[in-house]
């Protein structure tokens, strides 16, 4: 799950990183936004169910939807005994 500040929210950390990159000579980098990455190990009957659970978790806890947006990617794996 990727959680990032909404585009309308000023990101001072991203801005600071951008300035640092500029000092390092990477003038081709136009913008930097810093976010969070969560890896959830979810046991579910389907990728869809895992997506539903993850989305709920994102809305409830992992993202503050006032200022953050998120994207969930499910990597489904069958386990022994399924």
């Amino acid at each position, binding site marked *: 799950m990727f959680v990032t500040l909404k585009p*309308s*929210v*000023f990101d*001072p950390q991203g801005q*600071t990183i951008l300035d640092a990159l500029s000092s390092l000579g990477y003038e081709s980098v136009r913008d930097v936004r810093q976010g969070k990455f969560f890896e959830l190990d979810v046991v579910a009957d389907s990728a869809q169910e895992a997506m539903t659970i993850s989305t709920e978790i994102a809305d409830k806890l992992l993202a*503050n939807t*006032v*200022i953050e947006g998120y994207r969930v990617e499910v990597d489904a794996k069958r386990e022994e005994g399924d």
Partner: protein
Amino acid sequence: MKFAIIEFPGSNCDHDAYHAVRHVLGQQADFIWHKDTDLRGADTVVLPGGFSYGDYLRTGAIASFSPVMDKVREFAAAGGPVIGICNGFQILLEAGLLDGALLRNRRLKFLCQDVHVRVEATDTPFTASAELGQVLKLPIAHREGNYHVVPERLADLEANRQVIFRYCDSAGLTSDSVNPNGSVGSIAGICNLRRNVVGLMPHPERACESLLGSDDGRVVFESAVAALVA
């Protein structure tokens, strides 16, 4: 007047709040552990400052799910006065009891300094004994004090007079240079629509005795006491 001071793992301004209401103002005060679901007949609830859950994930995020918060919600829904100071303000925002969110200070640094705030409304339980426009010198100590809300919501807050404290200079004038953290509208504290829940970033509980640099914060707690008697 009985104050309930909620303690979360990591709260560290709980004793400052206790000292202010119990020893300086002579009121009753109880510490309520975050897992308790009994506010013990409190008249006013205080969510103190600190670093609940180490600010893990987001400041105040995990604390907003503590069992005690269901009781605080009930208490607030029934009109009970609730004040959230610093981390307490963050918790109230995460719990949805106040609108908006707090971002990292715009210059990224943790700020530990005195500021001035102007009282923008005196019809809340925590500003009722203050004068409109009164300037209070209070300390701040925060890294995520940059209040943010979308422009439409900001317009609502201003129209509804929900901005309770605004950063200013000693003469009460606002400007970007006296806004320590970049918060939108120089907002230092707000209230809910019903006006019984107030959150602010500065620490009035650390400004109740002139020996400690300022006693401008007393009026916040004196207001709560007076509001109950009224």
